[in-house]
């Protein structure tokens, strides 16, 4: 009855694979950008174009090296619905190793549990609200660290590898190593409820009750940015894996997008009428799904910030939402876990519904699961596995979801089978390739491009000369040093304070100018004083000194 069959093979093998690998905007016509009189430039541009084409075609040629394709549960007829298939049935049908992976940890004491899988999916970090934190190699069943912290633990997350993890505890956030040894107490991260680790920037972003979003560089230990949301406690958090922008959900139903280099949110979206309960963003950074306490669920296309689907009345408010690598949408409400396939498409037929209610073209759930007498606290798709990890009040459960995991992994990027040596090398490599925190932007492609405000064509010699002489002119007209102000007191003179700031024994051209100006100022002040005292006339001119001034 139930089977996981590979459907990917016949689906997308039609000729136009190279379009997937093309980059940039292909809008401009060839003749347009090639319009130049410079032969050398023309040849260079042509060469670049050729190289680009070659690169695209060679990348497309590697497509056949990815033979693995994800398969989905498929119904045999119209009457059969895949969401009716239960986990026990799937477990019976699948192979032993997959069945073994569907682990179910019954931990009733310290729940509810929140879970976090490491980036390569080898390790699982569980964090019970009441202070039970454990890190394990879940496939081997190897417990790496287990701690009872005896205080509230909100959430926990792995850092760059499974060697380190951060735990948001009652007041502070702590960083532990793989054996559970406390390494750091992040005293600036207070009452954290949500944490995200940005792997390419080595940043730990935290948000919580305080309404501050804080970025900590875990490689250097610096607090990179503290951003005040001004929107009360943060109720949800997610990172966009494509551009490392952090999405925060707030009590007033807005989702704000943040980068550490901007004190104000990059974008504000009104996504619910009540508080946002959860946010999820797909791997490519195209879509965002949010659930609100007002029983709404919205799917956004965050490339252009348009709503794709808006579901206003879920049976109960959604508490968690997640999007798998393959684009499955998982939503939890209370004890329910519901998954939809193809929910991230803009067509009307892909709008998720709970039931078909007689219509044939409705996107009914792909799978669903119920934890009776329980409540789901946290969900996460397991990387490279057909599993979804669910943290609930009574422990942690992995549900088998056929077609949830990325079938082809790139071992140079994230290797699910990496050895200790590979992990070490990967860490060094990622540290070397670490991106600076202030390079985070809504569109990361702007890096390296020409500034929007700059002229679109290359400046001619005159303009360039103008720019270069601009500074020179500044110094020529004494614009780069404080003005002469004979009115103010000598002590308050800007020129004097300028001199004070300068190193005493260094004499440069600027300093000499300042000294000259200061002399002028002094004499002007003196003259003023004299006038005030009536010693000299307003019109009085010292002809001798004026005549001599030209030599000064």
């Amino acid at each position, binding site marked *: 009855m139930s089977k996981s069959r590979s459907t990917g093979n016949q689906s997308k093998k039609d000729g136009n694979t190279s379009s997937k690998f093309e980059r940039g905007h292909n809008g401009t016509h060839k003749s347009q950008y090639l319009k130049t009189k410079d032969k050398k*430039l023309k040849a260079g541009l042509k060469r670049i174009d050729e190289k680009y084409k070659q690169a695209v075609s060679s990348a497309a040629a590697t497509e056949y090296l990815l033979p693995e394709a994800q398969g989905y549960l498929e119904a045999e007829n119209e009457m059969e619905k895949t969401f009716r298939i239960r986990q026990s049935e799937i477990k019976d049908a699948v192979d032993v190793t997959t069945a073994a992976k569907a682990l179910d940890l019954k931990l009733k004491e310290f729940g509810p549990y929140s879970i976090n899988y490491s980036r390569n999916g080898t390790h699982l970090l569980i964090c019970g609200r009441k202070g039970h934190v454990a890190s394990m190699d879940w496939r081997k069943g190897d417990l790496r660290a287990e701690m009872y912290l005896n205080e509230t633990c909100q959430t926990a997350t792995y850092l760059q590898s499974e060697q380190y993890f951060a735990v948001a505890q009652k007041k502070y956030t702590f960083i532990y190593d793989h054996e559970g040894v406390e390494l750091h107490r992040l005293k600036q991260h207070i009452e954290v409820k949500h944490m995200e680790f940005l792997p390419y920037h080595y940043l730990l972003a935290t948000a919580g009750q305080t309404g501050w979003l804080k970025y900590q560089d875990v490689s250097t230990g610096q607090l990179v940015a503290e951003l005040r949301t001004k929107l009360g406690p943060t109720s949800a958090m997610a990172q966009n894996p494509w551009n490392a922008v952090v999405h925060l959900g707030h*009590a007033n*139903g807005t989702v704000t997008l943040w980068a550490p280099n901007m004190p104000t949110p990059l974008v504000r979206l009104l996504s619910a009428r009540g508080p946002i309960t959860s946010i999820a963003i797909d791997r490519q950074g195209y879509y965002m799904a949010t659930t609100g306490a007002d029983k709404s669920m919205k799917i956004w296309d965050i490339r252009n910030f348009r709503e794709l689907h808006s579901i206003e009345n879920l049976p109960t408010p959604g508490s968690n939402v997640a999007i798998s690598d393959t684009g499955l949408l998982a939503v939890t409400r209370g*004890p329910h876990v519901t998954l939809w396939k193809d929910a991230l498409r803009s067509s009307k037929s892909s709008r998720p519904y709970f039931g078909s209610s007689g219509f044939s073209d409705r996107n009914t759930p792909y799978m669903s699961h119920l934890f009776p007498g329980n409540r789901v606290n946290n969900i996460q798709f397991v990387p490279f596995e057909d599993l979804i990890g669910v943290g609930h009040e009574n422990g942690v459960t992995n549900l088998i979801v056929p077609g949830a995991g990325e079938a082809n992994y790139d071992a140079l990027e994230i290797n699910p089978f990496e050895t200790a040596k590979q992990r070490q090398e990967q860490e060094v490599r990622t540290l070397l390739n670490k991106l600076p925190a*202030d390079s985070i932007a809504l569109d990361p492609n702007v890096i390296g491009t020409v500034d929007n405000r700059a002229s679109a064509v290359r400046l001619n010699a005159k303009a360039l000369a103008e720019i270069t002489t601009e500074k020179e002119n500044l110094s020529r007209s004494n614009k780069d040093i404080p003005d002469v102000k004979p009115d103010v007191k000598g002590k308050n003179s800007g020129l004097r304070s300028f001199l004070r700031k300068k190193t005493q024994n260094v004499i440069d051209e600027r300093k000499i100018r300042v000294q000259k100006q200061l002399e002028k100022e002094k004499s002007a002040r003196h003259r003023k004083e004299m006038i005030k005292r009536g010693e000299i006339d307003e019109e009085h001119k010292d002809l001798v000194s004026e005549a001599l001034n030209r030599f000064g």
Partner: protein
Amino acid sequence: MAKKSRSKRSRKIAQNALEIATRELDESSDNELSYKKDWHQNGTVINAQKNSDQEGSDFEDEEIDSDEALGSDDDYDVMSSKFSQTLRDKRKNAEYDEDEMDGYISLDENDLLPLSQVWDMDDAQNGSETENPTELQLNDDLSESELSQDSESDDESESAEEEDPFDEISEDEEDLNLQTITDNLCKKTEKANYRKLDNGVYGEENEYSLPSFKAGQKKLNLNDLMSVVEDKAAVEKASLIKNKPSSLPVPLPQRIQQRHDRKAAYEISKEEVNKWKDTIQQNRQAEHLTFPLNSSAQHNESTMLVNSTEHPVMELEKRVTKVLKESNLVSLEKESTFEEIATAKIDPDEMRKRTRELRLMRELMFREERKAKRIKKIKSKAYHRIKKKELTKNQELIEDFEESEDEQDIARARERMSLKHKTTSKWAKDMIKHGMTKDKETREEMEEMLKQGERLRSKVMGNSSEDDSDDRISDLENDDKGNFPETDISRNNVGKSGVMNMSFMKKAEARQAESNRKTIEDLKAFENGNKNIFDDDIEHGKTGANINLNLGRRVYTPSAMQSSNEMEVLEHGNGSETEEEPTRSAVNSTQNVSERSKDKRGSSNLRSKNSGSIDATSQNEPNPWLPTEDEGKSRKSNKIKIVDENSSKLTKSANKIEKKRAKQTRQSDERSHDEEPLLDVENADKLQLNNHNNGTLSDEGIVFKQQDLIAEAFAGDDVVDKFQQEKKRVAIDEDDKIEDVTLPGWGDWAGAGAAPTKKRKFSKIKGTVRKDKRRDRNLKNVIINEKVNKKNLKYQSSAVPFPFESKEQYERSLRMPLGQEWTSRTSHQGLIKPRILTKPSTVIDPLKAPFK
């Protein structure tokens, strides 16, 4: 410049002449006075030649062409005549250097003239120069044309008419140089001139006024001059003199000539350089260059091309060979098979014998060579010492006879200099520096020092080197005796044929063997002489040292031995322990985990029970805003609880919103009331589900939940409104602003009845973005921040970079990321390949000229 200086000089001369003339006139009146004065002024005798030379050299200092300078230098005394010109030319060609030398060195008594003569000379020059001043000028100027030549030829004819000075010159005075000849010439002409001058004056003859020339004397002719020249060939060649000189074309001015030369040279070099043009262009346009260019490809000749059999059997083989033959790919040498080699035809027994012989021969030769090498290498301390002693003894013997003391000293000094750490002391350096080594005492002291140093060094070095050498000698002997007893026999037998049989080879071999034997004997003698030195070391072989394999260091005590054994045992045990590594299945291990956690939990539970009770009491208090989830197990329905819990999470914020809402108008309240049922219109089925859930609620829950729902609903309405307002506000804030900057009353008439001006002043303040250009203008529920992110700007280019002309071009070039993460390996390598690749450790030749 030259002209100028010359004219100056001529003026000077003219002045002199005038003086002389006046003196002559005044002679009668105050003869004696002037005489005294003159002597006093000029000294007794002056060197006219030198004088002129000095002037010439002064003149040379100025910037002039070397030719001109030379000319002026030479022709000073006979400047005006064409004859001198030709002479000069000749000289220039042949004896330029000598002449110059002459000018400075050949100062004989003959050259020294009395003052009066000098006066005469001056006078004469003056006369000749004043005669044709134009000629003087023209003479120098090379750019002058025929006119000057004409005048010159006239001069020549004039000079030819003058009397011949060579009449006076006898045959035996041929060695007189030209200088003196010209001097004489001058005298003659001067005298003539003088007479002319003197004609007007009728004075007596005395030592100041020479008797006038006798008329009828012959004039100097060119032919007369030629007769002096001995070289017949030169005389033959002197066509200028013999024939009427035909005018040669005037050479171009030097700078113009040089310009022409340069032009021509440039053309030639350009042509030469242009040969490279295509190659260079090609290289410039090339995307990648690999140096050395055009490196010869190394082909591995595949064995495929070599035929296995001589005659192809298969059809395909035949065809292939045919093709190969046609394309000259078959090499004859390779084709020759083993059978064709001459040796293959010999009887196998014979062959074997020969090879054996050859092998033996080679072996013997090799061994002898090795031996020689080894002996050569042997350098024992004792050997060296004795060698050195011998050498010094010999040297002393030789020194006694031959070397002078100085040489010895020098040798010693050199030796000392070369010995690094002995002469580095300050004292030694000083001694050497100041040549104190000649002093016997210091020398002895120094030698003593050197000896001391040597002794010390030998102490430092110890016997290690001796050990090595000693072993070697014995080894050698052993080799000879033990391993190859039959060497001599075989040596005699082998080598009856082949190269070894030749007499010179035999001789050489014998010589080598003999020398080897001798050296060995020598060494043995040394050894015997110094036997006691080496005896000690042999006993060192076996001491109590116990070498532990693992530790790699020596242990000298028996207890150490024990401990090491213990260590071994321990290690073995460890190994066995690590062997039994448990392998667990996923299920097993997870159970393990849960068990462990249970255990720990048990203990922690006990501990936390006390504190937990406090928590429980606090939680039991009825708080409508807090969730009731803690009594989870007694719950009947989860779904109800969930709603409650969710609301409870957000109660704080909801509460806040409610407070704010209270300030709002009633109208909005009513509106939200109206809207509430609308929520469920769209999906009827879900509404039912919802109602069903609600139906199971207990009374308390319903009341609480409805309140919550209402609050939520109101909050939502508020949220939307607020968001819209915020969006409007942001749009206005970031828009361009127009500010009223009119100053009231400024420039107006004040007072009653004054009409207020309607003109108002506005200034525009530029905002970040205009309202109608906002990116979110058409997007509902979205506010996009339009502010420029200044920290991002540093990652952007402020202008289109150089080779590109437009932003489009530049950004198109950025399209493809270079990193290996984003492209395939081949394209990545292609994208990052440097333009120039050089092969390390190869010589890069300059570009070769292509042949054209």
